[in-house]
């Protein structure tokens, strides 16, 4: 299996979710600055405003630019030996779970993802969870079956070796 891309709808889901948090953050910052304007000196207020402004700019980039970049980079691959997920924007990550270590698989759909018809495939090992986010429900089920069949082959192989 080649590296696969996730659904494009995932960009919109991320935009919606992050915008909600950004809005809450923005309201908090504005209330905080209003309070500080009346309670601290002008020098300190300007100083804090500059820091808050830079932070807001940073969060704005995270909210409105990063979903596109994440989508562009996010890839997954499932083969008979391992599950690989490539992610990250500035720091590129490659997550690897050996098939033989998988304990159980879970398909999850939150309320927003249900609206967009997407789901998340969670793969559990004894010490970690690996998520493949933003795939269609049917694809998730297909992938789950595929992982299960690979796992069966691995376990059978291991059993034969031990015998």
């Amino acid at each position, binding site marked *: 299996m080649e590296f696969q891309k996730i659904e494009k709808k995932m960009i919109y889901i991320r935009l919606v979710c992050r915008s909600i948090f950004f809005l809450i953050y923005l309201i908090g910052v504005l209330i905080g600055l209003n309070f500080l304007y009346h309670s601290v000196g002008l020098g*300190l207020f300007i100083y804090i405003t500059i820091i808050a402004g830079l932070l807001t700019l940073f969060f704005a980039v995270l909210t409105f630019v990063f979903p596109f970049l994440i989508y562009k980079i996010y890839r997954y691959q499932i083969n008979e*030996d391992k599950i690989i997920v490539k992610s*990250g924007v*500035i720091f*590129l990550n490659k997550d*690897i779970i050996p*098939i033989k270590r998988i304990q159980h698989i879970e398909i999850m759909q939150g309320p927003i993802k249900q609206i967009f018809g997407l789901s998340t495939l969670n793969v559990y090992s*004894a*010490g970690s969870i690996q998520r493949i986010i933003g795939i269609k429900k049917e694809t998730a089920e297909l992938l789950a079956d595929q992982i299960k069949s690979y796992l069966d082959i691995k376990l059978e*192989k291991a059993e034969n070796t031990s015998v």
Partner: protein
Amino acid sequence: MSEKFKLSKKYIIMNLLSWFAILFFLSISLVSEINFFKDHITAAVLIVVFVTLLSIPISILLWTSKYFSVNEKEILFCFGIFFKKKISLRFDKISNIKIERNLIDIILGISKLKINSGSVVSTGSEIKLSLDNSYAEVLKNFFDYVLKNPQQPVLENFPLPQKYSLVKKGDALCKEFTTKEKLLMPLITSGSVIATLIIITAMVMVLFFGKFTDLGTESFEFELDLKRFNSAYLGWKIFAIMSVVIISYAARVLYLILKYYNFSLVRNGDQIHLKYGLINQRNYTININKINSVIIKQSLFQRLFRYGEFSLSFVGNFIGDDNNRDNKPTRALIPMIKIDYLKPFMQKYLNEFYKEFEVIKPKRHRMLHFVWIPMLSILIPAILANLLLTVLEIPVILIPAITAGTYVLAFIGQLFMMSCAGLGYNDDLILISNGMYTKTTYLIKKSAIQYMKITAGPIRRKQMLCGLLIRYKETFSFIFAKHYDLDLATKLENDLCLD
């Protein structure tokens, strides 16, 4: 066995005593020559001082030059500073073994273990080992046993010196803490050092920068003024700080004695039994196959004293003798172990984790380690310092000083980090060392590794470097190895995923 065992350190004292005895007789002979003593008092004092000063390094050198080792067939004894001598005596040629003690030995608590070959041409014992009483007895019993049972393997049953903190208990060898270890433990564990620093800082702040104002009606107001250094009653204040530090140290010694009371570690076949504690008793029975990793942790002070904390991470703890099994990942701790003795300790108790590794050091990247990372790590402290200075209205000149100080600290931190880091692997195990001031070494079973992450930021990507994050069967067990070749990471990835 290539392992070299030294004689008891008390041998140095014994040697010094013999030097002092010579000095004593020399002084007596000088005193008898009244005229000499009268006329050359300075020369006499100088001779005494010179001999005393000379005796210390010579005694230490003599001790370091003497060691013994054992292999399957023979015992080897090496000694001599300028004229080095190596005696090898086959077990089947040993004629007799005896333990001797003179008055000084009894006072110092050591014994001379003498091993003779029965050769008529040699004078005295071929091998004469000054050892701690208990170990001399154990070693004598062991050689007696070897002589009676020549077919039995020697190395497997060889009792390690007490310095290795292994004590014979019934049929098993146990680890116990020496008094020195008990006293050192609270001094050099990271937590204790941090606690002491906090105590000292808090007391300095209160005593030297605090101001108590009497408000009457039995109430006081406390005010902290960092700009005003109060030097009144300086001696008393230093005495108070030292007293509190000593009391807290004594309390920690007591706490650790109670916590690790009657510590015993026994390996019995496939199982390790670990037991300690007076108030909260811990009792672990660990199946060797269930151990996922061995972790050796060394704080900066522990590294200076060459000590470390040793813990085992495992799943499936049999609590006590019943079949009550806890399947959660657990860590059992041996809080103090001499790093020099780790090798024989591992061979004895955890042979499964004792493997030779070719340790690969991370790639050093000057821009990354000594410019970017320190720069980024000072960003937050610098902002905080700026904020603090604005609020406290401290002169602006201090801002670059604090920033530069933080940068230097981060730079030194990177040097420490590079010295700690290392990665190695073989067919069964992966070794990862990391840390900055506290060095942690993980020996992880490959079969326990559940997940691996290869991560690379923009600078590392340019250099084809990456960071490795590994998780094994333990809660919060993220182990990070930074700055390794991408090829190495891919090799490791394939190695872990394939059968």
